[in-house]
């Protein structure tokens, strides 16, 4: 090998800050294009559902939001775990940057679920396994953020909240499997890794494109937020002075 790549280079806040800044516009453009494409597919290409009429179109925000709520939690817990094990500064900042967006998507999954449940099931809410475990996910995000904010010492705050994030990961497979393990009002997975899908192709495409759009959106806001976290954590560093000294 002629050249070794220093994989840890970008784990330092000082070099990740400008990298994140350069990546944001690209992911923002991707997010915008995918959102427009997803909405077009979801409203104009996907046909009317034979059972639920036009009401089923809530699915194109509901399912991607629910996916992101779980996915972001897992990524957040991985960063929190890396922070605990390797003591890398960027990891705990990334976990902090991910939490609000994860909480937002969890709320949106619950909100759109309620608006879908009312016309189809006749109720906004039931205490069934899927809905309850998703609500617990929201509480885990809120708990993570409050715990981090409640402890003044940055290192201790990162350690305590990191531990909470890791323990809370148990909830994610419970959410995912809840529709199989318990008798729930919530329908089973329409898209499955093992048994394929039980859905019209254009409906599936709409969900997947909206899912990708939400994913790109998440990358944009999380990179922007982690830049804020980095500045606050490194406020006394030389490079921050060089970066901000010129800002009026």
């Amino acid at each position, binding site marked *: 090998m002629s050249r070794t790549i220093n994989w840890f280079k970008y784990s330092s806040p000082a070099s990740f800050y400008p990298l994140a800044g350069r990546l944001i516009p690209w992911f923002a453009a991707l997010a915008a294009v995918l959102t427009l494409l997803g909405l077009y597919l979801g*409203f*104009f290409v*996907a*046909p*009317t559902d034979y059972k639920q*009429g*036009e*009401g089923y*179109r*809530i699915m194109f*925000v*509901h399912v991607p*939001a629910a996916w992101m709520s779980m996915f972001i939690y897992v990524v957040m817990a991985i960063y929190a775990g890396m922070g605990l094990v390797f003591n890398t500064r960027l990891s705990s900042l990334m976990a902090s940057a991910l939490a*609000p*967006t994860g909480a*937002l998507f969890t*709320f*949106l999954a619950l*909100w*759109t679920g309620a*608006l*879908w449940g*009312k*016309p189809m099931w006749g109720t906004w809410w039931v205490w069934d396994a899927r809905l309850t475990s998703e609500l617990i996910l929201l509480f885990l995000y809120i708990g993570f953020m409050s715990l981090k904010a409640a402890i003044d010492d940055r290192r201790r705050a990162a350690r305590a909240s990191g531990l909470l994030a890791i323990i809370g990961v148990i909830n994610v497979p419970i959410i995912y499997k809840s529709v199989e393990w318990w008798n729930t009002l919530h329908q089973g997975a329409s898209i499955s890794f093992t048994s394929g899908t039980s859905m019209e192709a254009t409906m599936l495409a709409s969900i997947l494109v909206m899912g990708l759009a939400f994913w790109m*959106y998440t990358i*944009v*806001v999380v990179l*922007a*937020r982690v*830049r*804020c976290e980095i*500045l*606050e954590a490194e*406020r006394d560093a030389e490079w*921050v*002075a060089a970066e*901000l*000294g010129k*800002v*009026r």
Partner: protein
Amino acid sequence: MNWGSAREFFAMGGYAFYVWGSYGVTALFLIGEVVLVVARKRTITQRLGRRIRMRLEVNNEAQT
């Protein structure tokens, strides 16, 4: 094409409240989050920038 007219589109087959309630709140929150993050970035840059310039001025005065 699913819709004969714009009115039909917005009516969503009678599910307008539920469908637009879902998409509307989602759009509102996602845009709102972007606005909040941008505002936070601006506040931090201004505050830290002021601090840094203040420190520089103190250093300059000490030297003269």
